[in-house]
């Protein structure tokens, strides 16, 4: 995506990626859902982070060794979207 990737574009794409990992329809991915709620395990998270990096051509500071201690907030869908929006602005803006 280019500079034109708005916050809405980012949110839509991130939800799509998470939905794919969770094997859900994007419409069923709630903003306050945690990875656990969605049935996304550590492997799924690593894959989702990879998909996000590929989609936005950014680098995500996610350490699977201790996900909660990363600079990348994965508490829930909303925090992931906000983090990606921030990274897109910082790295592509």
């Amino acid at each position, binding site marked *: 995506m280019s500079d034109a990737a708005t916050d809405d574009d980012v949110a839509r794409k991130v939800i799509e990626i998470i939905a794919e990992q969770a094997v859900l329809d994007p419409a069923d991915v709630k903003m306050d859902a945690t990875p656990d709620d969605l049935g996304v395990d550590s*492997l799924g998270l690593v894959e989702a982070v990879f998909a996000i990096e590929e989609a936005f051509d950014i680098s995500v500071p996610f350490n699977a*060794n201790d996900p909660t201690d990363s600079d990348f907030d994965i508490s829930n869908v909303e925090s992931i979207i906000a983090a990606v929006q921030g990274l897109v602005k910082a790295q592509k803006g």
Partner: protein
Amino acid sequence: MDGAASGGPEPGVGGPGGGRRVVATGVGVISALGLSTASHCEALNEGRDGVATLEIEDIDRLAITRAAQAKAFVGEDRYSRSQMALYDRTTQMALAAAAEAMRASGLEVDEALGLRCAVIMGTALLGMGTIDDNYRDVFQEKKNRVHPFIVPRLMNSAPVSFISMEYGLKGPAFSVSTACSSANHAMGQAFHMVRSGAADVAVTGGVEAPLTFGTMKAWEGLRVMTKDVCRPFAKTRNGMTLGEGAAVFVFEELERAKARGAEIWGEIAGFGMSADAGDIVQPSVDGASRALRGALADAGMAPEEVGYINAHGTGTAANDRTEVQAVREVFGAHADALVISSTKSMHGHALGGAGALEMVALLHALRSGVLPPTINYDEPDPECDVDVAPNAAREAKAAAGVSNSFAFGGLNAVVAARRWDG
């Protein structure tokens, strides 16, 4: 052991003792810490850090740029041009370690003995340098032709073949690939073969040369590597560091070794293995405990005999926590009376070669009475509340010890050894 008293050990972990006794009569090492057993062990005693900035092609495209690279090991200095055409770095390091082990053992292999010698080496990957270089040629440089010996150069079993050819070892020979447990599985097989009489001597150990751009990229992808420093068992630990190297041993039937006056490094006493049958990357306390118990049962070793454990100790949050739980489960209160250190903090995680480098540490610890430290240890973790010999080697006489390998994919292998007092 309890296992024997209650009608035999758990299925699949082997029976206690029995058969012939097996000792290590030769050791050879190539690692980031040194290009000989003596220099490697001296570095272990000193708690030297073998990790530094990696020197490989395209380093600027890597996020993880530190590893325990054996930079002083240069194949071209040791092997001819025609040998180098056939030797991946994996084979180069394995042959160098085997040469030291064979020399140290004083073994003279004639035709009759050759038929009774096994070669069993653990290697998780393949000749990754060969793969990287030739993929570059065909994909990046668009070359339509590669060197004719790429296949024998890259195959997982190449180190075994070249060791057998070099010394005329004509008995059972094969490679073992079980990710990070490869070397322990290989040495376990070698031990059981010599004990059972399937071979009189086994040249065994492990080797890995994974410090290539492609392999580093793959490990980056897993996101379990530290960007700074590998700190096993510390609260601040944030991942592992890759390493490379080889360690090769001569395992020999005891009476044979005594008869020829060989120097004995220690007794290989038991071997246990198990599968978690759980997760492809997450470790399990149950699987690790069963392998540990299996090794003790196979050795006829009481938990209280064990004074030192060379940990799998990768420095990831999950491994170290799980490993300490397993040790507590198996050793009970005795877990507080022993030392459990991770030498990966110094020589890095050499994957399929790791167990062999760590077996050197175990035998050295038993023999010298100096238990190697866990370096880079800064802050205790309540979840890893064991004595890890933080930052400095410990002088302590241990009668016996075990070396743990708990691989991705839940394949666990533990070797038990006893000090040799003559």
